[in-house]
C-alpha cells in the first residue's frame, strides 16, 4: 500500500471546480511532483491534504506508524501532529522576529510539550525536560547543518536572505519528523545555484530519511531532475501521470503547457 493515496478528490469554491475528481499516490522514499499551468489546482490539492481546506468529496488516506489516517477528517494541526504531514508555503511563512534556532524549536513543540509535562515539569526545571530540550537543539543543529544555516542560528529569521528563508522553512518542516513532506514551490525565487542546492537537499532527504516528498514546482530543472513520479493537473483535472520521461513527451501535457495547435490554426 502506498504512503499516501488520494482518491476522487473534488473541491469546489462556489461554482468554480478547483479540483475535479483527482486521484494519485505518493510513495515512501520517492519524490512525487505535482505540476501544471497556473490555476491548475495544485495548491488547492495541497491545502486539502494538509487540512487547511475541507474537500467536498474524496478520500485522502495516509499510512503512518502502521495506522491509516484519513486526512480529510483531521483538523489542520492534527494533520501535522498525528498524521505527520509537514508542509511549506508558496509565500514563505517563517516566524520573522524569532531566531532561526527558535523557529526550529517551535517545530518540535508537541514533543517538547510532552517532555515538559505540559509545562508543569518544565516550570520546576525537571531533568527529563532538559534532556528533551537538548535533544531538540541537537535535531535543530543537524538540520541547520544540512541547510547551511548553522552560523546564522541566533539571528532573527526575518533577516535571512530569501533563499535562506526557503531553506529554513524546509528545515523547520523536517524538524517535525514527518512521514510526508509537502513542498509548495520550494524553488520559486531561487537562483540557479540555490536551485541546484535545493535538488541536492531534497535528494538527501529522500535517500537518507526515506520519507515521501510531494512537490509543487514550476522550475522544470528541479522537477525533471529529481522527481520519481509526476502528476500533471490542468483546470483541476489530472491529465497525465508517470515518470519524468513519459510526462515530458505526453502530447496531453504539451498541449496543456503550449496550447493546442488546431486552435491556433483555426
Amino acid at each position: 500500500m502506498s504512503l499516501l493515496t488520494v482518491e476522487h478528490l473534488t473541491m469546489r469554491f462556489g461554482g468554480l471546480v478547483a479540483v475535479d475528481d483527482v486521484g494519485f499516490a505518493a510513495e515512501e522514499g520517492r519524490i512525487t511532483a505535482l505540476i501544471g499551468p497556473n490555476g491548475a489546482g495544485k495548491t488547492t490539492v495541497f491545502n486539502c491534504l494538509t487540512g487547511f481546506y475541507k474537500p467536498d468529496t474524496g478520500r485522502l488516506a495516509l499510512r503512518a506508524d502502521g495506522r491509516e489516517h484519513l486526512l480529510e477528517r483531521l483538523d489542520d494541526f492534527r494533520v501535522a501532529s498525528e498524521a505527520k504531514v509537514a508542509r511549506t508555503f508558496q509565500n514563505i511563512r517563517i516566524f520573522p522576529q524569532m531566531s532561526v534556532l527558535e523557529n526550529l524549536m517551535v517545530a518540535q513543540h508537541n514533543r517538547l510539550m510532552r517532555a515538559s509535562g505540559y509545562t508543569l515539569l518544565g516550570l520546576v526545571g525537571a531533568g527529563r525536560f532538559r534532556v528533551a530540550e537538548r535533544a531538540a537543539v541537537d535535531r535543530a543543529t543537524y538540520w541547520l547543518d544540512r541547510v547551511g544555516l548553522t552560523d546564522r542560528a541566533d539571528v532573527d529569521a526575518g533577516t535571512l536572505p530569501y533563499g535562506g528563508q526557503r531553506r529554513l522553512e524546509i528545515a523547520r518542516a523536517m524538524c517535525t519528523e514527518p512521514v510526508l513532506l509537502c513542498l509548495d514551490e520550494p524553488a520559486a525565487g531561487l537562483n540557479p545555484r540555490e536551485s541546484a542546492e535545493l535538488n541536492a537537499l531534497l535528494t538527501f532527504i529522500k535517500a537518507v530519511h526515506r520519507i515521501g516528498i510531494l512537490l509543487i514546482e514550476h522550475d522544470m530543472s528541479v522537477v525533471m531532475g529529481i522527481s520519481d513520479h509526476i502528476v500533471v493537473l490542468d483546470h483541476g483535472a489530472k491529465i497525465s501521470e508517470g515518470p519524468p520521461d513519459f510526462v515530458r513527451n505526453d502530447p496531453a501535457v504539451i498541449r496543456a503547457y503550449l496550447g493546442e495547435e488546431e486552435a491556433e490554426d483555426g
Partner: protein
Amino acid sequence: MTAGTLAERGAAFLPTALKEAGIAAGIALLLALPLVGARTVSEGSAFVVTPRIVELALGVAFVFAGRLAIASLRGGHHLPVIVGALAVAALGWRFALPSAFLGVVAIAGGLAVACIGAIGLLRARRDEIPAVARIDTAGLLRQALGWLGPALIALAIVLPFLPFADRRLMDIAILVLTYVMLGWGLNIVVGLAGLLDLGYVAFYAVGAYSYALIAREFGLDFWSCLPLAGVFAAFFGIILGFPVLRLRGDYLAIVTLGFGEMIRIILLNWYNFTGGPDGISGVPRPTFFGLPFKRAPPEGVESFHQFLGIDYASIHRTYFLYFLVLALALITNAFTLRIRRLPIGRAWEALREDEIACRSLGINPTNTKLTAFAIGAMFGGFAGSFFATRQGFISPESFTFIESAIILAIVVLGGMGSQIGVVLAALVLIGLPEFFRELHEYRMLAFGACMVLITVWRPRGLLASRDPMIRLSRRRARP
C-alpha cells in the same frame, strides 16, 4: 564638511527658517484665537467675554520660537539654539507667567529643545571622530539594560528604608507596582501571544470580588483567598476565551472589550450578591501570616507590633502591602521569564508571528491561546485580590474600561513583550501623573503628550528589542 559650505548653508537657511516659523505661528494663532484668546466670565447674571491678549501672544511666540529652533537645528546651529532654549526654560522657571500651563510649556519645551540640540551637537561631533575612537552606544545601552533590571529590583527592595520614603511615596509606589503587575500579566496575553485584549480589567474585577465575597461569605483570610482568586480569574479567562479565541485582531479586541463591560455591569446590577453600586466594604485587611496590623487586636490575637515588640505605627501596614505587591509582581515576572523558555511560551510567540505556520507545525492554536488567556487572567486575579485587600472597599467604579486602556497602554508603550519596558511605562504613565498632582488638569494633558511622544519616537514601544531565549552559541551573536 568645510567651513565654506557651512557658511553658505547658514546664509540660505535663515529666510526659510523664518518663513517656516511664521507659518507655524500663524496656524497656532488661528487655533488659539477661539480657544485661548477669549475667556467667558460670569459676572452676576451676565456673561462677559474678556480677551486674553498676553497669554495668546506668549503662546504664539513660543510656537514661533520652537519652530525656529527646530529649523535652526536642522541648519546646524546647535549652540545658539541650546543657549536660547535654556534661557526660555529659565525664564519660565524664574518668572510667574500668566498661567501655570505656559510656565510648564516654557520649561518643558525649553529643556526638550536643549536636549535635542545637545544630541544633535554630539552626533555632529561624532561624525568628525574616527570610527575606532567612537563609543558603541548601542552596545553600551544594551549592557545598561542588562543592569537596569537588577538595579530596579534592588531599589524597590530598599525603597521603604530610604529617608525620603514617606506615606505618599509608598502609596504611589504601591499603585505603580500594582500596575506593573497588571502590565506583566497582560503582557503574556498581548505581548507574547499577540491577542489584543481590551477587557483585561474584567479579570482584575473577578479577582477583587472573588476575594471580597469569599472572605465575607466563608470568613477565609487573604492568604487562602489569593490562590482561589487566581483560579476564578483563570476560569473566567477560559470561559471567555473558548468561544472568542477563533477571532483575530480587531474582532477579538471588540469582543474582549464587551466582556469587560459585561462583568462591570453584572457587578453593578446583581445587587443581592455584589452589593451593586454600593460595593463591598469591610474587605479584610491583609495579615502578616496571621498577625493583624492593628493597634488594639481582638482578645486572644497577637498583632504584628506586639509580636515584634515594637511600637504600633500605621505605616507598618503600608510597608507590608508594598512588599506584598512587590513579591507578587516579581513572581509574575519570574513566571513569565521562565515560561518564555518553555515550549508553551515559544508557541505563544510563534502564534503571534504566524498562526497558519503554527498550525502547519501541529500546534493546537486554540489550546495555546487559551493557556495564554487563562494565565494572563490568573495574574490579573492576583492583582485584583491585592487591590481589594489594600482598599478595604471595592465597587464597580474601580473596574471601568479606562483601567483596561491604561494597562494596555503600559504594555504597548513599554514595548510589546518587554518586561522592563512595562516597568518604565508604568512609572511614566502612573507614577508621573501621581507625582505631579499639583498640575491639576494639565497632568492628563502631559499624560497625552507622553503617549504621543512615545508613539512618535519609539513606535514599537520604549524597549522593543527582543533577545532570543535560547542560543546555539554561548557568545552573543551580533548580526
